[in-house]
Every structure is written in C-alpha cells, then in structure tokens.
C-alpha cells in the first residue's frame, strides 16, 4: 500500500494494473537530470529529458559496480538521448540501454510513462 504521502511508494508496495507502479510526481523530476526510485528490489534511474518524456534504465553502472547512473549528466550524442556515468563517463543510450562507448555492454531499460502528473514505471 502507498504510505500517507501520495508521491511515496514503499519498496515492494502493491503494483497497479498490468505492472505499472506509480513512483513520484512528474514535477519532482528536474528537467534534463536523473533521479533514482526503488521498485521492489530494483533500483531504477529515471530521467526527464528535454522533450518532456521520462525514460527509465537500471541504476547500476556496470563498469564500476556502483548504483549511480541517475547521478550522471544527461545530454545527447548525435540524435540519441544519453546519460554519462558519473563514475568513469561511459555514455549510455537512454532509449536502448546500450553503452555507446562499449558495444558489449548494455543496461536494462524499463517502461516509464506519465499519468495525471504521476510517473509510473513497469519493471518486468
């Protein structure tokens, strides 16, 4: 169950229909910056990109092993929206999770959407 504050979901809280979990107010996300949410055991990095969309990838930086990707700098490479790891600056495609600096590496991508001013995430 959600707690008293509507924008806060305790880890492991009940999911809404078809797996979408409301995580926070859209307004709580800074434009072109990331934030991390906890969905069950999963740490999900959310990014509000310049086009107003919210994108979600795994918080784990596979290069350093630290859960930090939401703290990286958001930007673009060519026409791809990206985040650069705050640890060693490897750049990830926010759409596909692919590391653009090392084709062998990919981070998980999650579905994210905005409903009535709330951000919802779906973790398989």
């Amino acid at each position, binding site marked *: 169950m959600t707690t008293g504050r509507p*924008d*806060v*979901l*305790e*880890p492991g809280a009940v999911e809404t229909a078809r797996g979408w979990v409301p*995580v*926070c107010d859209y307004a*709580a*996300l*800074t*434009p*072109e*910056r990331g*934030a*991390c*949410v*906890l969905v069950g055991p*999963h*740490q999900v990095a*959310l990014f509000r*990109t*310049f086009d107003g969309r919210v994108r979600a990838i*795994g918080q*784990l930086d*596979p290069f*350093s*092993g*630290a*859960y*930090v990707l939401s*703290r*990286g*700098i*958001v*930007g*673009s*490479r*060519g026409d791809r*929206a*990206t985040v*650069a790891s*705050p*640890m060693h*600056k490897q*750049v990830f495609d926010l759409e596909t*999770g692919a590391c653009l600096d090392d*084709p*062998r*590496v*990919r*981070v*998980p991508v999650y579905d994210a959407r905005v409903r009535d001013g709330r951000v919802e995430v779906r973790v398989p």
Partner: protein
Amino acid sequence: MRRNLVVVGHGPAAHRLTELLVERGAGWAITVLGEEPRPAYDRVALTSYLTGTGADELTYPVPEGVELLLGDPVTEIGRAARTVTTRGGRTLPYDALVLATGSSPFVPPVPGAEHAFVYRTLDDLDAIRAASAGARTGVVVGGGLLGLEAADALRSLGLETHIVEVAPWLMPRQVDEGGGAVLRRHVEGLGLTVHTGVPLAAVEPGRVTLADGTAIDAGVVVFSAGVRPRDELARAAGLDVGERGGIVVDAGMRTSDPAIYAIGECALAGGTVYGLVAPCFAMAEVAADRLCGGTAEFAGADLSTRLKLLGVDVAQFGAASGPLDVTFMDPVGGVYKRLFVSDDAQTLLGGILVGDAGPYSALRPFVGRPLAGTPTELLFGGTAALGGDLPDDAQVCSCNNVTAGRVREAIAGEGLTDVPGIKACTRAGATCGSCVPMLKRLLASSGVALGKAMCEHFDHSRAELFDIIRVRGIRTFSELISAHGRGRGCDVCKPAVASILASLGAGHILDGEQAALQDTNDHFLANIQRNGTYSIVPRIPGGEITPEKLIVIGEVARDFGLYTKITGGQRIDLFGARVEQLPVIWKRLVDAGFESGHAYGKALRTVKSCVGSTWCRYGVQDSVGLAIALELRYRGLRAPHKLKSAVSGCARECAEARGKDFGIIATEGGWNLYVGGNGGFQPRHADLLAADLRMDELIRAIDRFLMFYIRTADRLQRTSAWLESLDGGLGYLREVIIDDSLGIGADLDAAMERHVGSYQDEWAATLADPDKLRRFVSFVNAPGTPDPTIAFETERDQIKPVLITEIGARGGLEVTRA
C-alpha cells in the same frame, strides 16, 4: 666481452653522450670520472639556482648502468697502456676514452684577482650567495651573455650591481652597436650601472678600479669574461691542441690519438671552440654514433641564440654582417631589429633582434635561403605563412637539431596532432621552446586541424565560449546552446559551461537550470567514491585549525561512522557518507563554523603552508597568515581545473609551493611568486613569475594570473599545461600580468573583486534552501531509505567499502553483456 669506455668529466656534453650510448645499447661498459662532487647538471639554468631551484632539480638523471665516480679528477692519461689515473690513485683501463673536461672561467690578469669569484659551478654560486649576504654592491666583470646572467644573479641577491665590459657595448659577440645601445637602456632601466669601453685595472677587498681611474665599491666581484677550454690533460698526454687552446678533433670528434675523443667546450672542432650547449650536444651525438660504429660528422654548428637576459629578449642568427641590411630602431619602446641580406636582396644572411625577438623562430630557418617576403614584412611579423614553405632540411629546433622534414615526417608517420606530441616524438621544442610557434604552423600546414571544438555540441574552444558568454551576457546553458551550439549537450560541455557561468558570477551552482549542468560532485557538493558514497572536506584555511574544531570533525566522523584521512592539502577528508546524510553532516559542520572546502569543484582547493616565522626559527615571513588570507580571498573561485596553492616562509620551501598552480616563497625582501607548478601525473616545477613582491603587488599579480588563466585556458587544462601552451610562454605571461601589455589588467582586477565580493558558502546556502535540499535522497520515492547495496567492513579500526561487484556476484547483477 664488453669494451671499456672511460669519460673524463661529467657536464652536459658527457651526460648527453652517456644517455645516447645507453639508449643505443652499444655494448660499452661506461665509467665517468667527474671532478665536481655532484653529477652533471644543467648549466644553462644555473642562475635559477640562486632564485630557489634546488641542485637536485638541475641535476640530470644518470642513465642506468653508467658507473659514476665523482670528486676524483683524472690527473694523467697513459696513452701507451690505455689507462687513466686519478688523483685518488685509481687506475682505469680504457678501450676508448672521451675527454669532456669543459672549460674554466677566464680570470683577467689584474692585481687582486684572487678576491673575485667566478660564475661556473654550483659551488661558485654558493660562495657568491654567502658573500652577498653581508654586501651592498656587486661588480660583474664581463658584459657578454654570461656576464649579464651573473649580473641578473647579483641583482636577484639584492645587490646594487655594476657591469664592466671592455668592449664599447654590451654583448659584443651577439649584437652590434645599435643593439648594444638598446640593450644598455633596458639594463640601466632595471637599476644596474653599466661601464663599457674600459678595462678593469685592479681588485681590492671591497673595491674595484677601472683603467680610467673610476673606483667602484664592490662587496662582491664576479669574473664572467669568457671561458678557456680545459685542455691540460690532453696537452700533457701529447695530444694536438690549438694555438689558443682547445683539443684538436676531426669531424668524427677524434683527437690526434684515434682511441681518444673530445667533445664539448674543451674541443677545438673545425678551428672553433664552442661555448653554447646546442653544439656541445651535437658533438656528443657525433661521438656516440662513432662509438657505435657510425660515420656521423660534426659540420660546425649554428651559433644562433635567443635568450632573455634581465627581462630583455636578445636574439642573433646567421651572419652578423652583410652587404645590405635593414635596420629598425625604436629607442622609446626599446626595440632594435636588423636583418642582413645578400647584395641582390634575395637571400637572408642573418639578423639581430633586441627587445622583441618575436620574428626569431620564423626567420632563423631561412638563413641562406631566398626571402619569402620583403625584409620589412619579415621584421614586422609578416611571417605567418613561412612555416608551411619551410624546406625539409631547414632546422626548426636548434637546441635539439630537428629539421622541418623530421617534424613533418613525425606528424604524418605517427599521426601527431599537437605540440606536446611533437615534443615527445622528436624533442623539437622540448628545450627552450622558442620554436613552438613554428611547430604549430607545421602542424597546420600538414593538414592537422588544430582541434579546438570542445565536443560535438560546440565548435568553440573553452576560451571562445568564455568570451561569448561574458561579452553577450549569456546566463543559461539553453540560451548558449540554442544560439551557438547544437544538440542537448553532454558531460564535456555542460560542466565546462557551468564552470564558466560560475567564474562569471552566476550565483549558487545549484540555482535553477545550472544545477542540471553540474557533474555529480558539484551536484551533491561532495566527492563521489568508488562505491557511490561521497566524501566531505571542510575548509581548513592554510591548514590552521583550533582544537575545538578538530574535536567537532572527530565527533561528526564518529557519529556518522565515517572513515577519516588527512589529505595532502592539510585538511581532513571524511569518507563513506550517503547522499541523504550529506545535509545532516553539513548542518553540524556549518553550525561549528566550517564551510565548504570545494574539494568537489574545479575550483580553488587549498593554500598549504609551512608554520612560518611565527614559530619557525628559519622563517622570514608569516606564511600561515598569508596562506589563510589567500585561501579566503580565492575560496569558491571556479576555474578550468582545480587550483592548488602553497606558501613557504623561507627558501627551505617546506610547503612545496613550487609544486602548485601558484606558489609563494618568502624572501628577505618580500614574496616570490611561482606559477604553473604541478604534482600528479606530469610533475612540473612552477616558474618564477615575479620576485620580491610587496603584499599588494603579490595579490594583484595572483588576481590577474588566476583570472587570465580562467579566461583563456582549455577545459580541464591545469595551469602547468596552459603555461606550456602559451605562445611566448612565461615571458608573455609576465608581460600580460606584470606589465599589462594587453591592457586588460584593470578588467581582470575588477573580475576578481567581483568574485571576492560575491562569495557565499555553498553549503550554508544549500542548507537554507529546501528546494536545493530535495536532491539529497537515495530514492525519490523512499527518501528515508538508504541504498541497500552500500556496505562496509572494517580495516585498521575504520570502515572500508565492500565492493559492490562482490555483492552483485552474490545477489545477481542487472547487467546484460551481449
């Protein structure tokens, strides 16, 4: 079996020889016998020894495998037995012998000469320094290159200095009468007294007398009137020597005994004894090649020189006379330029430059070649296109004998794209640096686009962006990228622009859109560590801290379970804080009177200090007081990269100020300011920018230095690399900072005043702003929940991160590896 090579003498030429032989692995067992008690050192930089450069820094590294026997000069060569005997009684056999005995200073045969010093070795300089301590005036006998060096040294020791030169003008070997006159005005402008056209008559304790009867008070007298080759060993061994001295050698540097070579200042090659370092190195290279079975020849050397003496540029190249000449003289500006050309005015023969040696690097390679413009154009900078036209065999770097062709070859073959690459690959530009502008032109003409674009989003360099933002009053990244860039930015341009905005006083770094530009350290005002936690560094100005504050740091660390470590910058780093702990920890620190130390920013870090004259029995000034004042003045100043500083209270330099971006060393007369130092990956000792400054002069010089760096450096370019890359180097920097040659001094001063006036503690301001505090959570949907993957174990009674990969291995990583 390895053959024995014995080298007599250990100066720069001998050092170069051994370096080359070891590099080529020539199979010689090398023994070097030196007269001085220390290994070879850089004599060109001798004077810097008096202004604080340590003997260790001047000393060349001894190549591995070379046996060095110091303080034991050779007294005899046994040519028949092929042995040398030393004063200490050693006898060493040789298969080949190299004489590199150098030269000795010429001592004029006048009464009382024994009261004078000479200017040749570090020991000589120690003796001069000791004698200067109780003296008021000094006299240098000799107004040539070395004489002016010595005069500069006496001046830097605080002596009222006279120069006595027997020729009618100063530097008679390099410049003509007109150049000498301009040079004299410069030297006199610095407060030195010049006596020319009159020989020395006698030296007495405390006084010298000239031939015209002039008597000069002189606490210290230094002879610096030329050198004589040290050929006495060769002479005694029956080798051929020149009429006026010097060991006769052939083009392969071989003496009249084929087993014996001579190189450097003791050798008479092609009838000439060379006293400059470049030809001596060239001789060492020839001898090394011959010892490896090669056939290299020494074909004489270019005696072109460019140097800065007493702050004056002096250069001479090629011939010192010619059928036609073009002369420019500006007595007011102190500039003299003269070019010599062939009688058809088609070929450049040589030139003399005083006061502005700018055209030197472009003109020197054209000696003996057709002129690429009219002489007037060449004298006044119409040389921009010359680099591209330079023939392959033209020498670009005379210090290391590198031709334009070699540089072009390296650019093409090694794919070099910048000057540091050329330096590393060819040694061109690595010694005096005067050819660096030429190297840049060669790069450009080889089709290397000197990449200045910061990243794919901006075609501009950082310095250009700085000007755009400053001049157009741009306040946000969005405004900048929509008007001058493309895309949405990246981890390269965003923090760089954030830093520029901060340098220009755009307010708190977490205000509005700026917050999104900051990298994680600036974003959380702390330093990210390998497990995703952060470290905290409160400011401890000058490294001075009260017991009460020490206790607060200890209590905070204990209460939050942080790992503590003393930093190299004399402060305390607290490790292991999670993002949601940062505001709570800082609340405690700010309440106790601490403020941000900016360890997370490309900003001023610390001004380290020794304990100074307050406590130290050697200290001459209050280094702690100055360090605190400087740290408080420049705290929070954002720059292209981090800035470190230190203040030492005396020449012992316990604060290691010369390893810093700007370092200050106390002198009896004020403060010496050093700039461009660095530790780290590429250590560099800072250069002396200005000496004996009063406090107000010092602050102004540092203000301007920092602001000029902030405006013009590349992204993440430390002051050391910036200084290396400045066209005109330290001399140019000094002109801009001290002489205000660009007329921007007042502007730089005002920019720094704005910074000082608008400083606010970033952490206190953050704690006071709920909007800024919102970001300090691990999870926006669970603000109270710590990141469960962060774990610690104990080592030496403190926490240590358990690396997450280990947890991941146990708990299953969310990583997909294709």
